[in-house]
C-alpha cells in the first residue's frame, strides 16, 4: 500500500513536470521542470529496489547534465520562443493516431501484465552485485564506453572552440 501511494505521488509529480516542460515557453523554466522529473524518477527507481541507479540518476542527470543545460541557457541568453501554428492536416490525423496508439499500448500493458512485486531492498540491486556484473560480463562494453566519453570530450572542445582561437593556436604552434 505504501508502495502504491509513493508511486502515485511521485508519478504524478513526474508527469506534472513533463507537462510543464512542454507548456513553458522560456527554456530555463523547462530546464527546472526537467530537474523535478529526474528527481522524482530517482524515487521511482528506489521503489523498484535500484539503489545505485537512483543515486546515479541524481548525481549524473539532475546534477551534471542539468548544470550543463542551465549553463548553456545562461551563456546564450536564451529568450522566450516564438509561437507558430501547426498545419490542419497534422491536427486532423495526429490526434486520432495518437489516441489509437495510446489505447492500444494501454490495452496491451493491462492485458499482458504480470503481478510480481518487490519489497524495498528485496531485489539484489545492491551496488556490489551491480559492480560484479559490470566488471565481469559487461567489461568490454564498459571499456568501449570510456573511449566514447573520451571522443565526446574532444568533440565538445573542438566544436565549442572559437574559429579565431583555433587559427591563432595553429599560427603559434
Amino acid at each position, binding site marked *: 500500500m505504501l508502495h*502504491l501511494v509513493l*508511486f502515485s505521488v511521485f*508519478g504524478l509529480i513526474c*508527469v506534472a513536470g*513533463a*507537462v510543464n*516542460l*512542454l507548456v513553458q515557453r522560456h*527554456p530555463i523554466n523547462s*530546464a527546472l521542470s*526537467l530537474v523535478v522529473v529526474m528527481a522524482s*524518477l530517482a524515487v*521511482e527507481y528506489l*521503489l*523498484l529496489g*535500484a539503489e*545505485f*541507479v537512483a543515486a*546515479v*540518476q541524481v548525481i*549524473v*542527470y539532475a546534477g*551534471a*547534465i542539468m548544470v*550543463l*543545460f542551465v549553463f*548553456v*541557457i545562461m*551563456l*546564450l541568453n536564451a529568450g522566450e*520562443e*516564438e*509561437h507558430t501554428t501547426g498545419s490542419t492536416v497534422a491536427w486532423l490525423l495526429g490526434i486520432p493516431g495518437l489516441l489509437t496508439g*495510446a489505447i492500444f499500448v494501454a490495452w496491451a*500493458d*493491462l492485458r499482458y*501484465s*504480470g*503481478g*510480481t*512485486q*518487490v519489497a524495498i531492498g528485496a*531485489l*539484489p*540491486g545492491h551496488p556490489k*552485485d551491480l559492480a560484479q*556484473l*559490470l566488471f565481469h*560480463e*559487461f567489461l568490454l562494453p564498459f571499456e568501449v*564506453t570510456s573511449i*566514447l*566519453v573520451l571522443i*565526446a*570530450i574532444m*568533440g*565538445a572542445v*573542438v*566544436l*565549442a572552440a572559437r574559429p579565431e582561437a583555433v587559427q591563432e593556436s595553429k599560427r603559434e604552434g
Partner: protein
Amino acid sequence: MVPLSYYLVLSAILFACGVTGFLIKRNIISIFMSIELMLNGVNLSFVAFAAQWHNLSGQVFVFFVMVVAAAEAAVGLAIIIAVFRTRETLNIDQVNLLKL
C-alpha cells in the same frame, strides 16, 4: 505493491511527452531537453523490467544509457553553441542550412 504495467504506463507517458516536445518546441535547447526526457522514460522501463525478471542486466544498461546521454549532452550543447555563434539565433526554423 505496484504492478509492472503502472511503471510501463508512466514510462510511456514520459516518452510521449518527450516526443511531443521534440515536435512542437521551437527553441533548440528545449528540443534537446525533450530528447533527455525520452531517454529518462526508456530508463524507467529498463529498471521496471529488471525488477520484474529479477535480472540486474537491465540496471547495467541504464548505466550505459546514462553515459551515452551525458556524452550526447556535452556534444549537443557544443553544437548548439556553434550554431548560435554563426547564426545568432536559437529558433530551429531559422536554422535551415547545413552550411553558413
